[in-house]
């Protein structure tokens, strides 16, 4: 599923909503579209356990029943974690901008945990790590170090195969720092070159608690 693009995910969701008989609201006009608000999604190739969408309905529905019907209708690999009634504020509010953050997990196969730990140390010691990014308005730079709230490394080697896991809390923003920017930063300042492409998963996203550095539930 991580290889599906944002558009692939959106098509699959809209079809599942039709299959699940969820009474979607549609926009007016020549080619009506279902009223669904999407938020910035993970890049193609990145898995996620925490994506959020807001769906406009024509009629009120029990959230639990929508969750069950939609789960059954979605293809394997896409699961509904929770459905709640809209909170009366745009969903983007707790999830975008500098006040929000994501928890990322990065699995490095064939990388020694100690080596990853050392690389992370070099990275954290830097005052700023700027990596290039192309955006709609041209090329720019983002400061990966400044966006990184916290990070830890653990060893998950098994059967003689080295495997290191990096877990990192990264602040959102414009442009948002993405996990591959962090990987670019680790390569640039600490020379970390994984032999196989690391597997990235978003574990959570939500408002950032500035005092504890924790990522909170955006629906609460």
């Amino acid at each position, binding site marked *: 599923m991580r290889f599906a693009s944002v558009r692939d995910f959106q098509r699959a969701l809209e079809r599942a909503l039709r*299959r699940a008989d969820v009474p979607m609201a549609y926009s007016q006009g020549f080619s009506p579209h279902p009223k669904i608000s999407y938020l910035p999604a993970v890049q193609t190739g990145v898995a996620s356990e925490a994506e959020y969408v807001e769906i406009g309905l024509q009629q009120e529905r029990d959230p639990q029943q929508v969750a069950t019907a939609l789960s059954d209708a979605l*293809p394997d690999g896409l699961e509904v974690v929770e459905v709640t009634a809209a909170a009366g504020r745009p969903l983007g509010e707790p999830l975008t901008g500098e006040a929000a953050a994501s928890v990322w997990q990065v699995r490095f196969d064939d990388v020694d945990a100690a080596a990853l730990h050392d690389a992370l140390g070099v990275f954290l010691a830097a005052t700023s790590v700027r990596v290039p990014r192309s955006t709609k308005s041209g090329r720019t730079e983002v400061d990966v170090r400044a966006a990184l709230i916290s990070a830890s490394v653990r060893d998950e080697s098994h059967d003689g195969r080295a495997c290191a896991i990096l877990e990192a809390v990264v602040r959102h923003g414009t442009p948002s720092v993405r996990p591959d920017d962090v990987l670019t930063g680790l390569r640039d300042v600490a020379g970390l070159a994984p032999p196989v492409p690391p597997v990235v998963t978003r574990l959570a996203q939500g408002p950032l608690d500035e005092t504890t550095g924790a990522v909170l539930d955006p629906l609460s």
Partner: protein
Amino acid sequence: MESHFPLLEPLLPRVRKPVQYVGGELNSVVKPWGDDATTVRWALMYPDAYEVGLPNQGIQILYEVLNEQPDTLAERTYAVWPDLEALMREHGVPQLTVDGHRPVGAFDLLGVSFATELGYTNLLTALDLAGIPLHAVDRDETHPVVVAGGHAAFNPEPVADFIDAAVLGDGEEIVTAITEVVRAWKSAGRPGGRDALLTRLAAGGGVYVPRFYDASYHEDGRLAAVTPNRDGVPDRVHKHTVADLDAWPYPAKPLVPLAETVHERYSVEIFRGCTRGCRFCQAGMITRPVRERSITTVGEMVDTGLKASGLAEVGLLSLSSADHSEIGEIVTDLADRYEGSNTSLSLPSTRVDAFNVTLANELSRNGRRSGLTFAPEGGSERMRKVINKMVTSDDLIRTVATAYQNGWRHVKLYFMCGLPTETDDDVLEIADLAREVIRTGREVSGRRDIRCTVSIGGFVPKPHTPFQWAAQLDHATTDARLHRLRDELRRDRDYAKAIGLRYHDGKPGIVEGLLSRGDRRVGAVIEQVWRDGARFDGWSEHFSYDAWTAAAETALAGAGVDVDWYTTRERGHDEVLPWDHLDSGLDKQWLWDDWQDALDAAAGEDVDDVEDCRWDGCYFCGVCPSLGSSIEIGPTGRRLLPLEPVPPRP
């Protein structure tokens, strides 16, 4: 057999559109691998990119038919793009199915559907990646039996070296018959090895096994004969015809991919076959006779297909959908049923006929009237007489005017270039027609923002058609003719902006022509060009004409024939054609007489049109008596009821 996905997964972040390789489509199935002696396993391949292959009806139908059988499993595989091919070779990953990610080489059968000849090089890539020897004679009983189907299989001679068998016609019934022959052979302990299995398949005359036939040639390069080289093999192999489409309501559970594909709709075939008698049309000739699906089955399929897929568009497919005996009722009833549900209905391009505008209006009841496509095919009335497509210029203008009057803003017209006896003037007449279309359209609609797009395809003569003897137009003349048309359309500024022109250069058509009417000697050309790197020949960014001509020069050296000989040469009455031993049901003499009628019409003689045998009596093409088939059409007089409204959930 385990999933090999862990081998593939690390490569995917490094390729374009990785989602096309992961499978997991809604309604796809992964059955247990099963017991080796009793389970029959098919890998079904569409030899093009996933985005083109996934929506293919033939593959989806056979996938479902096979997987419904006990102890039978079918998985799908598609051509991998060169970026992934290079990585798979580097890391030793074999060609895999997208369902179970099992190696294609481990299956009992590899069924390949050739809608076009331009997939041949992709078959070679897949065989090579799967570890299956390219040449059928080098395979042993551990390798899959490679079976070709699809329209191109009506002349499989150019790929005869690479396939074990070919099947002509409808696959629904023969695919299970083949399965049972393989199962019996496997459960008996594979007696006699691969040779015995192929002999059993060939014996009934319904499966063509090229290695059991030898081709011989005259000194001038022409084919002398293709004859069986062993006992128990019939002289000719016949095509398969499913009589009752209502008995085969597939696909019932359409595959819905995550990846974007070329058709994002649920397609229902409303009839198979066409007897309009257009002389260029291979599909119409080889799928005879017409067999309709009844209005009630169409209605049920649309209902279950939409519920099973969540798709928002329905396509009513066939070779000429407006010709269904109850098309008006089908369209009206479906439009009624789905009114207000944001479900859209569509028909493929239609014949030039005012009734088609009525249908299109009905289909677009709720939506925007954007584009409507008509296919007059021939630019001049003379050409339309030659191809037996009876449309006068007045008919065309009248029909298009009706469309603009009904609020359509954009009309697309489809033509061919390079038809037999065609001259520059025939093609230049397209410009006059297009200008007249716009002039009339502006007049009847009172608007200046209407448009007309002219699309032109190069004509390629095809086996089993009246034009199978014709000389193909060389690519230089094709290009020059189309450039003259382009200049002519640009000449008048008042119209130029309202008329779009789409065409392709003539070179790919020559390669298609070589592969369409080629014999077994062309196999060496395919292998050579593939070794030189040819892949995805249906894609202009991958196709290389120079690679093909260079390969043909090498591979055909000393054979006394060349690309021109296969393409731009007209054949004579007595020439043995490479597909003469493959029986599409059509009487060769009938095809020849029809070809002569075309030439007479071209010369200005008054030749009777060949009307449609559904309404105008039999023209003795030979199909029904030789295959024991008959026309199966309505009307049934039935109508579709509205669906039960879905009760609101509490």
